[in-house]
């Protein structure tokens, strides 16, 4: 074949999971039949669970990056409950669960123990939902950051306490309906101006690496996990994982909704090192927030019985602020 000016163009580029035209070494971990399947079949997550998907994506990538030398420490939450109903387990990685609020501290301990044994090639991942990370485990997480412990902590953010029945967390977005923020009164759903932006709080600790990702962009998520496993010290990855049950969305729309979250600007995807943003994933096809909101029952009260343009505009303003802050509409990051 004439290779003088090869055209590097593939039907689906790197947007799809794999591609028969691309060299296997350039394909995603998930396209590999030999992938670990860290979280294997038979788990009891709901149909279309974003968290189950995100956890497998992240841990499979971490397993490849560490040549299978990995220990995972899990906080209490959906991910723990649906994967380990006694005596079954879905985990195909060494896996530890202690309490709801102490996963970062336990991960620190595992890391310290391995170091004491001289087994520094074994790496540690701490993981939990937004409840265990943003609220209940937050003190432990902040301590882990402050000490710069050699742990990658991954938060699978589904924006509420889904395991216990959809209660508001510090990661629940404004206007969203949860069991504890009902869609009643003049300002229905979760209040504006509250909640925590943990990626930015993590950046404020000036730890080596902070990144956000979603289940809608597999290659980006895998690249970030791989990059994090190349580094030592405290690292934080915040992954948006839509929850069909808690968000009132169709189970088939999990990835689509995550994609809309990024394309609307509501969920900025970026990387930061030592407190500074070093890269952002630009928006490819910008959409109004309405396209994202309309697919979710937790925002249904913004459209029915009366349309709440005022609230939708406030959410749009949040998206616009993100777009400006992270320069999401610029060609290259």
């Amino acid at each position, binding site marked *: 074949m*004439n290779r003088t000016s*090869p*055209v*590097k*163009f*593939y*039907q*689906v*580029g790197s*947007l*799809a*999971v*794999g*591609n*028969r*035209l691309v060299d296997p070494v350039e*394909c*995603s971990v998930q*396209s590999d*039949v030999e992938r670990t*399947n860290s979280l*294997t*079949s*038979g*788990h*009891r*997550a709901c*149909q*279309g*669970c*974003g968290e*189950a*998907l995100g956890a497998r994506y992240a841990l499979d990538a971490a397993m490849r990056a560490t040549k299978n030398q990995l220990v995972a420490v899990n906080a209490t939450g959906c991910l723990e409950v649906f*994967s380990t109903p*006694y*005596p*079954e*387990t*879905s985990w195909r990685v060494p896996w530890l669960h202690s309490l709801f609020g102490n996963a970062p501290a336990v991960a620190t301990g595992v890391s310290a123990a391995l170091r004491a044994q001289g087994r520094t090639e074994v790496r540690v991942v701490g993981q939990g939902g937004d409840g265990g990370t943003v609220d209940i485990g937050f003190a432990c997480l902040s301590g882990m950051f402050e000490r710069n412990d050699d742990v990658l902590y991954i938060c699978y953010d589904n924006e509420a306490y889904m395991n216990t029945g959809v209660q508001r967390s510090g990661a629940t977005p404004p206007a969203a309906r949860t069991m504890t923020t009902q869609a009643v009164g003049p300002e229905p759903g979760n209040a504006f101006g509250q909640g925590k932006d943990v990626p930015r709080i993590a950046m404020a600790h000036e730890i080596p690496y902070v990144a956000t990702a979603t289940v809608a962009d597999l290659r980006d998520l895998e690249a970030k996990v791989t990059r994090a496993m190349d580094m030592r010290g405290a690292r934080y990855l915040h992954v948006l994982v839509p929850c*069909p049950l808690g968000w009132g969305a169709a*189970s*088939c*729309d*999990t*990835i*689509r909704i995550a*994609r*809309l979250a990024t*394309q609307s600007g509501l969920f900025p995807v970026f990387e930061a090192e030592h407190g500074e943003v070093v890269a952002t994933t*630009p*928006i*490819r*096809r*910008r*959409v*109004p927030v309405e*396209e994202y909101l309309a697919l979710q029952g937790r925002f249904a009260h913004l459209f029915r019985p009366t349309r709440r343009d005022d609230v939708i505009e406030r959410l*749009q303003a949040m998206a616009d602020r993100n777009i400006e802050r992270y320069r*999401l*509409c610029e060609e290259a990051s």
Partner: protein
Amino acid sequence: MDKPFAVTLDVGSSLANKTGSWRVERPVYVDLLSPCNNACPAGENVQAWLYAAEDGSYEQAWRTLMEDNPFPAVMGRVCYRPCETACNRGQLDEAVGINSVERFLGDHAIEHGWTVPVSAEPTGRHVLVVGAGPSGLSAAYHLRRLGHEVTVRDAGAAAGGMMRYGIPKYRLPREVLDAEISRITAMGVRIELAQEVTEVLTLLDRGEFDAVFLAVGAHVGKRAYIPAGEAARILDAVGVLHDVEDGQPPLLGRRVAVYGGGNTAIDVARTAKRLGAEEAVIVYRRTRERMPAHDSEVREALEEGVLMRWLATVKHADVGRLLVERMELDETGFPQPTGEVDELEADALVLALGQEADLSLLDGVVDVAMCDGAVQVDGTFMTGHAGLFAGGDMVPAERTVTVAIGHGKQAARNIDAWLRGATYVPSMKQPVVDKTQLNTWYYADAPHAVRPRLEAARRTTTFDEVVEGLDEDTALYEARRCMSCGNCFECDNCFGVCPDNAVIKLGQGLRYEIDYDFCKGCGICVQECPSGSIVMVPEPTERFTDLDLLKTVPTHRRPPIGDMADHSPNRDVRP
């Protein structure tokens, strides 16, 4: 019982928990009909040969193409590309340059001398094909591949029919045509030239041939009465093109008027320019929008400086000048005379008012029905006379090379079945995939660096073959723009996006399988399949188990991201 304190059960895997029982709907892989395949008059499996071309398997691509059409290099130059009009990618950015890739494959095959083997057992049957045009040669090719003896007879001095005598050289170089015809004769098809067939039935009745396929085309220019002075020079378009091909171009003079609005009118006007005419004017009684000529040809003609006189009819022809009456469209869109008459200088007037078939070879054949100068055939291309088939321009259909080639293929299949005493049953058509069934998010945007080069190559001005065909890189690029509508192209999305690891990857070329033990029926694989090759169907029940029937249930799919809005990231999305 030597378990640790407080542990009473052995550790088990969740694989014991068959979550497939949760399911009420299940994903099923399908192969649907891509719009390009559906639109192709020659019945090409466009999606399949583009798929082969995408990884550089050009020979396989060409062989897939040759299953349906023995003239890829010709097609890649003269086809009007209904496939590209139908292409779903046209609604995303720009249709895939299917025709350019076809031309690349056709030229590549000629360059490499690829041939088609005849592997079928000889049937001992002998079929006569009358007419060596696209339809006749296509039928001959397909009949030969099915193991029949084939003889083609043509009245002309060279094979090719309208491909040679109707399409000017600047659109179809004769080396290309000759190469593709000689590939057919190399398969054992006998072509007898300068042999006019008159007694069709005698040949059949004497048992010389077991079946006859008539494909004599439509070579006789339609005449119209135009009052003319004695010395006025009036010619017929088909004759002009034929004479040019024979190397005896007629004298047309400095200024040539062409009367008519079809593709032949355009061909003659462009040919006249090439023969040295300073001015070529097309006189047509309606407007450009209503012209039957294809848009690309009109555009090219205008680019070459051919003049157009819309809404005009020729009233009178005289030496050096024409009288032309201005027309007006009435409310039904029909041109009406206005009485205003202009003079138009023209040394010659060429009539391009359509063509008719010369059906004199059927004189006296009582059981063949004719209507409006065309032979009537049934769904199997058989005339009223058993064993006598007809196709191409002489039967009622759109008159293009591609349609004729398609007729040849379908007739061949029906003739083959008839000779075996059977009926040809075409395979059932799958539903056609439209854009809403695709998830276009996943298709990569065409890199800007390559586009200008491609656009130049994709241009239709194959004038004097000035614009080269695609080179290998651009052909590969163009093939890869195919979205593979309705047919799995192994992107691994279903394998990757399943939260339950319930998709099994079977390996290259083998696609995937759903593991129904664990599939919960969430439908993410269906939603995220770029090409719409997975559909959700109700779970079969004891009472209703026919999955094939379930697959025909229309499934709803949401439009891909950004389809409701402008794709530009910088667009202000607020009202």
